[in-house]
């Protein structure tokens, strides 16, 4: 289920962790230590991870700490998602290209009206207590999210099921849209035919006999939150809050046993990740910030490899289009042409990032490069502003009808990303006659200002990118409401039409066509100034063989974790 909801990863994470990441501290040790290491070690013989107790059959993965929300219906951060996905199997998952593929389901059929999904389950799946996984378990898993007292973040997976309202608000005993046909067949009926509905089925299947509860008694399920039990490739063993999660391999896993017997997710942070790698106390460190200074440190350790790929997230500056100055497309384009984004990416990431121009992952089937790149071009920016009627005033700031091109940029604290950008944006825009002042506040305050109050000129945040290119909740005009995510007030008929078509079309080639057009609309209209899409680095000790993550397949993906071999 990480797929559909992958947009989730709230900015708090993306921004404060990934982007500010390394700036926060000096890292006196690894920098020095790295240099010395090069001289004294010849790689393999000095690989510190090999000497660790029990290293031969234990994989230790360093990652950000989890909150202990280890239930498919409840987790809200990527890291808790790792645990959930390792322990539970969804009906489907996705392949490297982002297409849905079977997991616990053998296959599935979609009815001609695209409303009913019928899944045929595999009959060789057992939960780790030996009980078989059946359609009843699937029914339970989805019914509990429909519960009137359910208070987790997955409601959207079931809200469009037939009979949801009757169960959630009324006294129906079952959700009529979930129908168990036999032990290994189950059908789901939706009220709306959307191609994105398939992604609701990545949701991990929970064993009914373990979690069983009466309608309304949601606390009984939450009480088992930190002791997950499912059918996945790993069996949950132990959770030490703020320290680590321990698993053992599920040797009877239906896709084959993992090739090592113990797995530990060890919680690290930017202060500790390099010493962990250097000492060999972690074998894989996920999501090391891709920056020149970190590269130097890692280059100093000749026993690690970096797996590099574009991160599934992008940073942006949102323009408040309710402001008549920013309602003019030419002004938004000029502001984008007028900021040297490439230079920013170079300064902040030392090249380990790309500027981005559309909110779709470059590896997605929906991505197109037939778009305007908005390369830095101050002359063009000035021409556009002239055309739009903004003339340079006495103080060097452009003005029109008594209004000045003077903006307040609402942004958040604790971010090197922002700190680096402020002087660069200021000076670049000054050259085209635009003044900008940064107003820095805490993230929660910014979020309220932007989404609840919609009181801002410009603001910056980041979104994660989902496997599916659909971005209805962010860009559709219906989401321009207090509390909605279209906080920039983007209203464009073409955009609305394409976003609707994109969700309603089921043929992937036709969808790709639609999203190509949509990309071009977004790229032309620029409700956001798209900033950067950073690279992600997963750093692995050389003793870890066949380790390959990619944008749509993170560490917990079956294709990744089941392939890993230890030396």
């Amino acid at each position, binding site marked *: 289920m990480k797929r559909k909801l992958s947009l989730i990863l709230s900015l708090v994470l993306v921004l404060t962790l990934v982007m500010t990441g390394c700036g926060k501290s000096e890292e006196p*040790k690894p920098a020095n230590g790295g240099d010395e290491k090069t001289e004294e070690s010849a790689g393999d013989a000095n690989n510190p991870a090999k000497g660790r107790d029990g290293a031969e059959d234990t994989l230790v993965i360093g990652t950000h700490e989890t909150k202990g929300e280890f239930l498919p219906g409840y987790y809200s951060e990527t890291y808790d998602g790792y645990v959930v996905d390792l322990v539970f199997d969804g009906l489907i998952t996705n392949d490297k290209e982002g297409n849905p593929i079977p997991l616990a389901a053998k296959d599935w059929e979609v009815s001609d009206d695209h409303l009913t999904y019928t899944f045929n389950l595999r009959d060789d799946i057992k939960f780790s207590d030996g009980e078989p996984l059946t359609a009843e378990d699937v029914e339970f898993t989805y019914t509990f999210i429909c519960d009137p007292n359910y208070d*987790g973040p997955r409601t959207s997976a079931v809200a469009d099921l037939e009979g949801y309202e009757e169960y959630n608000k009324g006294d129906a005993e079952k959700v009529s849209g979930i129908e168990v046909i036999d032990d290994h067949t189950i059908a789901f009926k939706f009220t709306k035919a959307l191609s994105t509905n398939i992604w609701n089925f990545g949701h991990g299947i929970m064993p009914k006999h373990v979690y069983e509860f009466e309608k309304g008694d949601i606390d009984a399920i939450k009480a088992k939150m930190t002791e997950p039990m499912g059918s996945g490739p790993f069996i949950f063993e132990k959770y030490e809050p703020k320290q680590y999660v321990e698993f053992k391999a599920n040797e009877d896993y239906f896709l084959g046993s993992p090739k090592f017997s113990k797995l530990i997710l060890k919680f690290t*942070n930017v202060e500790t990740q390099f010493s962990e790698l250097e000492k060999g106390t972690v074998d894989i460190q996920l999501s090391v910030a891709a920056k020149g200074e970190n590269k130097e440190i890692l280059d100093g350790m000749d026993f690690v490899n970096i797996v590099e790929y574009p991160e599934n997230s992008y940073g942006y500056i949102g323009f408040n289009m309710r402001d008549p100055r920013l309602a003019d497309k030419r002004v938004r384009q000029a502001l984008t042409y007028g900021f040297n984004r490439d230079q920013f990416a170079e300064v902040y990431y030392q090249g380990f990032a790309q500027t981005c121009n559309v909110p779709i992952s470059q590896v997605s089937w929906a991505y197109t490069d037939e778009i305007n790149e908005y390369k830095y071009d101050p002359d063009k920016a000035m021409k556009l502003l002239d055309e739009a009627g903004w003339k340079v005033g006495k103080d060097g700031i452009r003005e029109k009808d008594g209004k000045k091109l003077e903006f307040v940029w609402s942004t958040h604290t604790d971010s090197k990303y922002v700190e680096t950008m402020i002087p660069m944006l200021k000076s670049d825009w000054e050259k085209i006659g635009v003044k900008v002042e940064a107003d820095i506040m805490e993230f929660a305050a910014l979020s309220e200002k932007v989404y609840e109050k919609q009181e801002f000129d410009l603001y910056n945040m980041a979104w994660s990118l989902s496997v599916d290119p659909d971005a209805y909740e962010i860009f559709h005009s219906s989401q321009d409401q207090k509390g909605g995510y279209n906080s920039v007030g983007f209203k464009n008929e073409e955009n609305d039409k394409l976003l609707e078509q994109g969700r309603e079309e089921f043929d992937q080639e036709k969808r790709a066509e639609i999203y190509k057009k949509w990309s071009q609309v977004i790229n032309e209209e620029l409700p956001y100034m798209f900033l950067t899409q950073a690279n992600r680095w997963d750093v692995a000790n050389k003793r870890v063989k066949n380790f390959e993550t990619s944008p749509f397949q993170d560490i917990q993906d079956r294709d990744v974790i089941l392939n890993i071999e230890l030396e």
Partner: protein
Amino acid sequence: MFKYIVRRILNLIPVLLIISILIFGIIKMAPGDPLSTRLDPTSTAEQRAAEREKLGLNDPVPLQYWKWLTKSIRGDFGESTMYRRPVKDVVPKFIWNTFLLNVVVYIIAFLISIPIGIVCAVKQYSKTDNFWTVFSIIGISMPSFFFGLLLIYFFSVKQNWFPINGMVTPGKNAVGWARVTDILHHMVLPAIVLTIGSMASLVRYTRTSMLEVINQDYIRTARSKGLKEKVVIYKHAFRNALIPIVTIIGFTIPGLFSGAVILETVFVWPGIGNVMMESITARDYNMMMALNMFFALLTLLGNLLADIGYALVDPRIKVD
């Protein structure tokens, strides 16, 4: 004495009530709410509005306070929005971890610092005194994350003497005595950082307080009637120098339970400091209230203990 203590404890109730109103008010004044830091575009605006309603965030603030108060009095501190579990299920473990580390640190710090402070006062301006003065200044001014990283680099990465971080060895699952030694082994480096930090100020306090006493007339009298220097210092001077130190001990009670954010980050020590910080960023109201009230209560109790302590060491103070 007993009456006094009872009276003081009864006094705590209105004080705590006022504190809780103040804290609740301040927390609610900050912009944002638990949902504003958790942006999830798979949810619809309606679903988010419904969740706000469910959390009672749309109620008037006094009503929210009343609900919180009536529940807390019955021992129900509500559910943490950050952990999606009851606060009282999440917090005790973290507080215990912090307490464990701090108890060790304080005991060592007091045992070392007080004698050092006395020696420094007795041999004022000597080489020993100067050494500890410099030591204290360095100890107070050295940023704990830097010192922590240095220790990790030299004693864990270079020399394999101590684990680089954490509280237990992952996957070892030791029990009983083995677990105790495992935790102690992990505790050494963070304890050194914290001990040096708190030693510095303790040494200075003891020294100053001791100096003040040593220069009093009755000490000169004690010396002039031919008492041994040892007796003068440890029997006559030290007892009186203890009085201000008792105040400090009172203040350390809440300190025992409050975590150190930076240290917890550098050493991945699972303490309460980071939880507190995160609860603020995440606007986890129930968590913030529970923790703040807990610390308020500890501070008040610490003051009470200090007052009782005065009465015990200083016969001039009568509490009735």
